[in-house]
């Protein structure tokens, strides 16, 4: 057969690049200058992210002083080993508070960073004028990071409860406007053990305790810019081991009492009557009679297994709570959490302040 090479026009090259996973696309920046500019284009990054077939999700956690990531869909033993993501800043090592559309939301004392580990895009947001006036320990501040589809904007949310005055302060930082804006009204005050916030369905969710000791979820809707309460299921008993997470495509709460894990799922978002007790099982015993001192469900895999974190290891359980696999390469630093991170080529509005 005669040896010839067919050339494809740009628009067809783009169709192919849109189907590739993020890591392959980034590698192929090196093909030639044209490909480099095609792949670096922000419009291409958006199209690539909207193309759901090419999404790759990973677990990301802080293994001091580095941030590590690994696959979780395939078995831990078959997947490639965890990779260290190099986040270098002058300041101390930040903790992970959340993740959205390929960005990690990192927090170090009063500094907030947004970082896309795939592209190296990295930005630091200015301290809020209100937050900087506070001399109080930032321990009970709630943070969140998410995306407002209606405005194509990313927002950082900061909630500061004021228990002394039964009041609170709420403000958002818009990347489009590049400034903080206060949200009027009094909410709560709420206290939370997991101040990172969960971005789901256009809103940031925190598991909180109101000042009347009632446990519930509060959600900040990024489009409406308002905070609202989502009460727990009626049959939910107060607990100290619980949090809000995502079960497949649903908002969910889990609670652990002794060695029993209960999972409730909100089948229809914000519809209280749709809360359903979905799973109840006893956590497995791994070392003779030694129980886990803690267990935190992180996500549900496509095949319906639960990935959780316990005693510095990741565990894979099936829906009956049977232990399928253990991977012991984590040691999350206090205040940081393991998040699910979806790789992307996206940048934030307002430009790259500083390349890592």
């Amino acid at each position: 057969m005669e040896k010839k090479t067919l050339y494809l026009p740009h628009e067809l090259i783009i169709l192919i690049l849109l189907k590739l996973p993020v890591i392959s696309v980034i590698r192929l920046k090196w093909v030639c200058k044209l490909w480099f500019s095609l792949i670096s284009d922000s419009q291409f990054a958006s199209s690539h992210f909207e193309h759901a077939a090419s999404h790759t999700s990973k677990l990301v956690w802080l293994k001091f002083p580095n941030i590590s990531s690994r696959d979780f869909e395939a078995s831990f033993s078959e997947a490639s080993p965890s990779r260290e993501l190099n986040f270098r800043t002058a300041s101390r090592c930040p903790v992970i508070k959340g993740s959205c559309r390929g960005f990690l939301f990192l927090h170090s004392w009063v500094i907030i960073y947004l970082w896309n580990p795939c592209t190296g895009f990295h930005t630091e947001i200015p301290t809020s004028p209100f937050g900087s006036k506070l001399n109080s320990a930032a321990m009970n501040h709630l943070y969140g990071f998410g995306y407002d589809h209606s405005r194509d904007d990313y927002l950082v949310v900061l909630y500061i409860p004021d228990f002394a005055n039964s009041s609170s302060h709420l403000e958002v930082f818009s990347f489009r406007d590049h400034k903080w804006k206060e949200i009027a009204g009094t909410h709560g005050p709420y206290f939370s053990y997991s101040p990172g916030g969960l971005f789901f369905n256009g809103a940031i969710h925190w598991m909180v305790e109101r000042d009347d000791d009632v446990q519930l979820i509060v959600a900040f809707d990024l489009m409406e810019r308002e905070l609202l309460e989502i009460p727990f299921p009626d049959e939910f008993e107060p607990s100290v081991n619980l949090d809000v997470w995502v079960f497949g495509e649903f908002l969910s709460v889990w609670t652990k009492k002794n060695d029993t894990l209960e999972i409730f799922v909100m089948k229809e978002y914000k519809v209280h009557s749709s809360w359903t007790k979905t799973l109840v099982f006893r956590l497995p015993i791994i070392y003779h009679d030694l129980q886990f001192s803690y267990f935190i469900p992180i996500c549900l895999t496509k095949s319906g297994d639960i990935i959780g974190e316990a005693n510095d290891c990741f565990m894979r359980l099936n829906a009956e709570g049977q232990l399928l696999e253990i991977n012991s390469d984590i040691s999350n630093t206090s205040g940081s959490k393991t998040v699910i991170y979806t790789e992307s080529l996206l940048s934030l509005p307002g430009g790259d302040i500083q390349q890592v």
Partner: protein
Amino acid sequence: MAEEVSSQMNSLSISETNPSSSATISLVSGDDIVFKVEPTIAKEMETVQSFIDETDGKITTIPLPNISSHDLPYVIEYCEKSIAGKITKEFEAEFVKKLNNEEVKELFLAANYLNIKKLLDFLSQVIADRIANKSVEYVRRYFGIENDFTPEEEAKLREELAWTFTGVDPDDEDEN
């Protein structure tokens, strides 16, 4: 192997005439082979259909100078399966198994020229799968692209992108 299959299909398509349908569309490949297809097949090919529409259906012989008689039967086969709702993973796997890299690109260009969205979408995924785990050098050869970076730019890129090189397949002999 691929040659054999396609020549068989050629003869099938050419000899196949349907007397009950007067509106059969004749597609003429770049190398002057006539393929008679049902109007429903032509509908799948937007470029062909708009040509027919523009002439109010009076012209039913359509020259396709950019498409060879080697590629056209594949395109027709895919459209037939698509109309019948029989595009399955198995069919698609079989369909591309017999195509080498150059043939896939040829078909991809044909699908683009004929504006067949499903085929275009499918073939872009096929090509993506074939290059996803390949080295940069392999991909350059695959698309016939010259490296136009300076050695200094190369050194910088190599360092920046080093993390993306894990899991890359060793370059085997190119298939075509």
